[in-house]
């Protein structure tokens, strides 16, 4: 009887322990979700205002004088409220459309960052007089908020109202194209060789350990390597998407090799033996049977590697991609920057208006990364086969 009681007590104790452990785990998850929630709420709250922007309706006079001094194209009252980025283009407007010369046109133009900041209740350098003018024009409907197209159609600028992510997005695409063009075939072939062709000996095990180590090397070291090999030795132009892409390829290579090997290993040996059984060569066995079956896994790993490369900044700093790039690059040898580098540059700008642009840049980067990772999950869910 006594033994029975003791046993029951022990069981109750074990259950209690289990409950405690479960509660701790739930606590950990709640904390993690809370962190993510706070982070997202903070970034969204800081950044959403960057997606709309003040516009001002002005009369632009295209005469001799305004071609000489572009600021004279608008009346003195609104001159400090119009973006200098617009005024600078006035002579260019006439050049591309000679009919404009001598005419006065009423048009909506981007307002100066001061107007933007003032209407968004942020700190501004506008004088009280200018603030009064803004209030007056705002009431008269001549200053209005509109979607901030500049943010998506223009490159970096020193004028916050003119700054956008286009050149960084194009730079990111070019850089990642180079990265994948180099890392994917190389990684795939290395993995196929190690998994399907190589014999298991000391040498291949040595290589395997090294590849696993490489995946854990801090990314800044790849930057130093890229600087030494690609720029100083091979003469790849500094700051170019090619230099950045090759550097990131070095970093992504081990990730692709490891995930590809895992995907190949998941294909059961019965498939290989079946192929051999009907007289297939090793190459045929790999290309006709194993690779097609492991492709979803390989692609998932590659996409995750790509997402990691996309968020990387440290190695790119060393190959000169933390540069000021107002216009999008046309090719991989032209100077370029990438999204995370653009965010970093904006974060260190003195002007307060860059705060919201920094947060908006982060939002765009997060959205793209989420899409990439979601694609990876989807691919796995849809095409993965279990044996």
């Amino acid at each position: 009887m006594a033994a029975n009681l003791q046993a029951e007590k022990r069981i109750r104790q074990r259950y209690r322990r289990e409950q405690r452990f479960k509660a701790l785990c739930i606590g950990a998850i709640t904390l993690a979700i809370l962190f993510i929630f706070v982070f997202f709420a903070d970034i969204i709250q800081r950044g959403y205002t960057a997606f709309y922007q003040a516009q001002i309706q002005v009369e632009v006079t295209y005469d001799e004088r305004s071609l000489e001094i572009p600021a004279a194209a608008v009346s003195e009252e609104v001159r400090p409220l119009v973006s200098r980025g617009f005024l600078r283009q006035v002579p260019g407007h006439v050049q591309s459309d000679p009919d404009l010369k001598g005419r006065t046109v009423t048009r909506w133009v981007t307002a100066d960052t001061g107007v933007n900041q003032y209407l968004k209740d942020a700190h501004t350098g506008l004088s009280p007089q200018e603030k009064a003018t803004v209030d007056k024009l705002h009431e008269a409907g001549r200053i209005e908020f509109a979607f901030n197209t500049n943010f998506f159609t223009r490159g970096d600028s020193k004028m916050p109202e003119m700054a956008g992510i286009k050149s960084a997005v194009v730079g990111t695409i070019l850089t990642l194209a180079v990265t994948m063009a180099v890392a994917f075939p190389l990684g795939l072939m290395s993995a196929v060789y190690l998994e399907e062709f190589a014999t298991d000996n000391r040498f291949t095990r040595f290589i395997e350990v090294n590849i696993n180590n490489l995946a854990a090397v801090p990314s800044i070291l790849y930057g130093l390597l890229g600087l030494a090999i690609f720029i100083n030795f091979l003469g790849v132009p500094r700051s170019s998407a090619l230099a950045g892409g090759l550097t990131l390829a070095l970093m992504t290579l081990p990730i692709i090799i490891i995930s590809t090997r895992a995907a190949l290993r998941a294909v059961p040996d019965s498939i290989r033996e079946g192929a051999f059984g009907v007289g297939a060569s090793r190459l045929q066995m790999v290309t006709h049977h194993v690779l097609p079956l492991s492709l979803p896994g390989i692609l998932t790993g590659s996409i995750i590697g790509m997402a990691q490369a996309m968020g990387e900044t440290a190695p790119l700093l060393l190959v000169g991609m933390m540069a000021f790039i107002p216009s999008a690059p046309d090719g991989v040898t032209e100077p370029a920057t990438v999204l995370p580098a653009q965010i970093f540059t904006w974060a260190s700008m003195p002007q307060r208006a860059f705060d919201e642009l920094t947060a908006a840049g982060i939002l765009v980067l997060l959205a793209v990364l989420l899409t990439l990772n979601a694609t990876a999950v989807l691919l796995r869910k849809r095409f993965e086969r279990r044996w």
Partner: protein
Amino acid sequence: MRTWHKLSLAAATAAATATALAEPADAREQLRLVGSSTVYPFASYVVEEFGATTQYPTPVIESTGSGGGLKLFCAGDGTDTPDITNASRPIKVSEYDRCQDNGVDNITQAVIGSDGIVLANTANAQRFELTLEQITRAVAAEVPQNGELVENPNEYWDDIDSSLPHNEILIYGPPTTSGTRDAFEGMVMEAASEEMGYDGAYTKIRQDGAYVPAGENDNLIVEKLVQNTEALGIFGYSFLAENRDRIQATRINGVEPTPETIAAGDYPVSRSLYFYIKNGHAGKVPGLYDYVELFLSEKMIGDMGYLKDEGLIPLPAGRREQIRQSVLNQEQLTRLEVKTLNQ
């Protein structure tokens, strides 16, 4: 299986395009600039304007720090080296010699304006008034006491001077890699150390937690000041100008940092900003001197210039004219001048 073939084909094409596009870039179309992160906001403004208003392509500018910039600049005379480097301090004799050794023997120096280094705290607290000596006593690793150097014992501001508030000494400032820190050490500590009883110039900053190196991001320092009402921060004037609603500048030796006091040199912690031009590239890279001319024009660095809005403090009009003359004549910088600049 078909997907697999298509995919390998796509990868192969992509690789081929990447190699085809990678032609050697011998003749350069674009100007290349490197250098100081303090000058970077001004120079990139000019870069943008230059790209938007001339037929030349937009120059490439990188922020590498003054020392890093001069290192790249002096590496050689070929077109794979930068054409211009920005600096928040004059070139050192050692750097000048390195340039000469590497065949960069014809350099022109341009001064673009002044910058003040400010000490600021949150606008919600009392404004500080300090002398150079008091600042040195707060940040130095060791202080002279009875003719001997002892480890800095000051924990609160009123340990230094009883008229100062009973606030903990906590200063957020630039790290050792920064040109702003070099300038701060030179203009505050070196300037004060002679009279204070140090044995010569003393520039060692304490590492016991009272001085916090806060990274190269000055916005971060401003954020810290807003959160911690007892803390002081060290950064460039342009960050003060942009954040006047949140922080206030310390009066140093009784002078408040304003564009006027900094330009006149009354404010003791002010310095000139420079850039250096590689004259050997003048004929090789298109637009070099057009860029320089735009940078030195009145609409950029003048009293009403655009860079004033960005936080640059203009030089007196006469000096601007003089600099424009000498720079546009491509006057060569001599070793003697470099020596005098560094004294």
